[in-house]
């Protein structure tokens, strides 16, 4: 019963088209996960957040025109906003600390979709 009872709506924010497409495809293989959108820059992220109200955001730190950290800060100011997983190839200590302090989780790329799904499912609701 309980394990797969919740459906998660996920927004992917990554400007690497191939990576975002593959991640979306892989996560969609799991029945309790659905991708509501793929954003490739900060503005798109904020717009899609309003429109789709996802539970989870997978956010890349480096994007054109808007710094990932800035986006994170804006998301954290939202009431009842989504849980954010920062996905990054680079592991800069201060960035990791900042993200965690803002309440985000931090995941290092490359990481497989299966692991991300497990982490999402094990979030305390």
């Amino acid at each position: 019963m309980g394990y797969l009872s919740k459906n998660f709506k996920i927004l992917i924010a990554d400007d690497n088209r191939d990576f975002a497409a593959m991640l979306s495809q892989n996560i969609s293989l799991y029945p309790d996960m659905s991708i509501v959108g793929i954003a490739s820059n900060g503005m798109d992220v904020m717009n899609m957040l309003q429109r789709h109200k996802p539970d989870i955001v997978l956010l890349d730190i480096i994007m054109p025109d808007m710094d990932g950290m800035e986006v994170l800060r804006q998301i954290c100011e939202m009431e009842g906003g989504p849980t954010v997983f920062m996905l990054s190839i680079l592991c800069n200590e201060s960035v990791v600390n900042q993200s965690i302090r803002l309440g985000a989780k931090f995941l290092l790329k490359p990481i497989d979709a299966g692991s991300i799904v497990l982490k999402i499912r094990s979030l305390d609701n």
Partner: protein
Amino acid sequence: MERILLAMKDKENLKTVSNFLENNFTLMFYENGIDTTALADLVIADEGLPPFLRENAARSKKDQNAILRPLLLIAPKEGISFIGKDDWMAADEVISSPVNKMELYTRIEALLRMRKQSMLLAEQRLLQDGDGALLANEQLMSFFSILSHELKTPLAVVLSCLEFLSVSMANDFSSLENCRNTLEISKRNTLRLLRIINNIIDLTKLKTGNMKAYLHNTDIRRFLEGVVDSVQAYAREKEIKLVFLAEEPCAVIAVDQNKLERVLFNLLSNALKFTPRNGKVTVSVGNSPDRKSVMIAVRDTGIGMPQEKLRGIFEAFSYADGALSKRADGCGLGLALVKSLAELQGWGVRVESKLGIGSKFCVELPVRTVEADALAEGSFSVQNGIAYEFSEID
């Protein structure tokens, strides 16, 4: 765990202190003559300091920017007042004998805190300094960060593709079309990775003087025409007009054809990437007025670059619009390679650009020929064709 070097002559002191400290610190023991202070966060010694300790202490007290490596001196049993003047001068703190565990810990903790402080200060000072050496260090860090990022990005995509294929095959999920598409994506990214690696190897070879140039007398105009032709398909895909202009026959010059092709390819690749749909890229070639060199120009109607960014444009990993916020032509090595390849053969490379209007890259080839080689007709093939495949900007 912090490392403490014990340089004590008194065996009893040594035994006591190491017993007190062994569970909370990594202990190093001074062996005759071997100076291991560089590895230690703190040094504990008793009277009769080995000379190297005294020298180290003296040296670091002179150097304002040195990071504090505290020296804790254990006084002789007779009392603190029996410490020699030199030892006093060298020590940062003194503790009486027999050593009390609480007092030892208190002193050590205070000294280690001071060390941490001095580390932070030194770091700040250096970062503000504009000191060439440290900036170079910072640039090196940044270079490796970017490098690591650019190498791992396509790799992450390929791993994703493999994950998809194995999960969908195991569960008999996906359509043939999805699989085909996934394979296409994975191939594209593998080639991109290959290209980046080739660029790095070539740049390194060039920078360390390990690259040879094999010269053939070449009809530059025909050669260029060949390169431009090989790129037409991609230009058409992007709906960019790619034009080749050559008003007159050009001189025959001895060049390493593979490298010339590489230079042109990189410049064309940039031009096409930074020019929007329906834009125009013009490749022109002509003799200089004095006929002593052949000038090649690659002009685009792209976004252009601000003047202040032009200066470092040929350096590895420089981006005209700011470091990591945007990634360009396969990690910013393209132009660095162009410059190094050009320098290898004595070619000049220049750039002009206007924001919003476009850029123009010029390569100047001084006329010279080699004996013996006949005109290299028909050798315009793209070397390692696969490695030079274009790919989308991320």
